[in-house]
């Protein structure tokens, strides 16, 4: 019985520790299309976007996620809690069951920035050294 209580306590502690989120993206920044009204997002709000719990911006514009495979995988893991492969599978599950739209992909940072600049409602994680033209930076709090 004592062992069971100890295990339950440890599990509860693990959950509580896991629920405190802070986010400082290493070597990456979050950008968005200029149509996006938000200038900042909380780490939880950003995670909800990448986990498909939030699919629309406040004004009703659909959120379009754009990704740069491999080069921003570490930051993607920080934001979404998923490895790149799991993230891709997660969105394929949604898209092919009629429950979401797959993230768009770009081959390099410049192409990703251009994609976000030209796509209404788009959001992306880009390397911090990317040249940001025609997009806005989203502060993550």
């Amino acid at each position, binding site marked *: 019985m004592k062992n069971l209580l100890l295990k339950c306590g440890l599990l509860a502690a*693990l*959950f*509580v520790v*896991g*629920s405190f989120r802070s986010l400082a993206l290493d070597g990456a920044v979050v950008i968005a299309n200029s149509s996006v009204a938000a200038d900042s997002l909380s780490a939880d709000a950003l995670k*909800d976007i990448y*986990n498909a*719990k*939030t*699919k*629309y911006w406040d*004004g*009703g*514009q*659909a959120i379009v996620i754009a990704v740069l*495979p*491999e080069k921003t995988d570490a930051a993607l893991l920080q934001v979404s*809690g*998923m*490895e790149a*492969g*799991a993230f891709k*599978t997660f969105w*394929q*599950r949604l*898209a*092919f*069951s*009629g*429950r979401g*739209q*797959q993230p*768009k*992909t770009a081959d390099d940072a410049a192409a990703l920035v251009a994609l976000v600049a030209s796509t209404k409602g788009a959001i992306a994680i880009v390397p911090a050294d990317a040249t940001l033209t025609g997009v806005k930076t989203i502060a993550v709090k």
Partner: protein
Amino acid sequence: MMYSHSTNKLALAITAAIMASCAAQAYEVPLTFMGTNMPPLDFHGFLSQGFLYSSDYNYLANDSKKGSFQFTEAGLNVAMNPFPRTHITIQAFDFDVGNVGQYDPILDYASIEYTFNDEVGIRAGRIRRPGGIYNSIQDIDLARTSVLLPQGVYDARWRDFSSTIDGGDLFGNISLKKAGSLSYELYAGFINMADNGGVARFIQNGLPLGGTFEAIDQCPIFGAQLWWNTPLDGFRIGLSGGYISNFGYSINQFIPPNPPFPAFTAPIHFVGNIPFGQVSAEYLYKNWTFQAEGYTYNVSGHNYAAIIPGGSAEQPETQTAAWYVSAAYRFNKWLEVGAYYTEDYQDTTKISDSLFFQKDAALSFRFDIKDWWVVKAEGHYIHGTGLLADNKDNPMQNDNGWFMLAIKTTVSF
């Protein structure tokens, strides 16, 4: 019929060629209407071709003992967001698993959804039915490590029964603060099963001598899927269940002469109810994926023979149950290895009878050769024959273990 299937195969081959030529890129098509820029259409698609080989019995494919390519899936979907918070999506689907599907194209889903906020949305039309980890994506090869899902929980032949409904659902995600969040889908509608679908084939196989299958009814269904997304990243626990009422089908039963009565054919209609439930757990930890699910349903009802006075007979209630545990590990961008063990009991009162159970240990290798091209190879050691279903293909069944090899490749965009 042969011409129709040849035509469908040709259409599938053309689809494959188109997919191969445009693989790796999703397609976005800009639209204009009365001079106004419309939101773009977003196209995605996939084509999967499998190969099945089994040692002792014909399983899933009619002639898998000789090696069979009767294992094909293809889908093409288009989605758009025409108005704020509004999403429209349509998918056409084509498949063949043994004698089910047979390349007849179907409208897989076509729905419109409106999301009021993160907590509440509504979706209507033909929709994929939620149920556990895989029910709504059971035929999407890209979405898993294995070639075959645990067949007791997700039978590839029964997709017309389990995959979609015509109706609607209410969905959303409710924050539980530090306790994570709760995702829900509440649905109701009708199941439209095909007269040549997996359930119809299953019924046909179980008919007594002199019985011929006539038709299967549309039946109402309601249910719910709940997911508790725990505060531990990647760990979620699910609970789903529902109720199918007025599940029915018709047969004609030949009654031999019994002097002084002549021979005659009696139309018989079965009507029953099917409550079902499923528990699920999934944990994504670094490059690991752990999953476990249990599923059960009960069938009970009556056979009615209108032309026979007092011709109503209760069909004894049957409970079916299945479960599995699985683990998969992604070694790198191109290789993932997984394994699962599953048990299925077609009748929980006969759990020791190998004709009614099937236990399956599987080892899977998934190779992501390109972003748009996946190849999988999988070995199964199976004990029991509870899911073979078609006795005509497997007249002799015994208690020995047997093997199956499954290979599948998928291209997508």
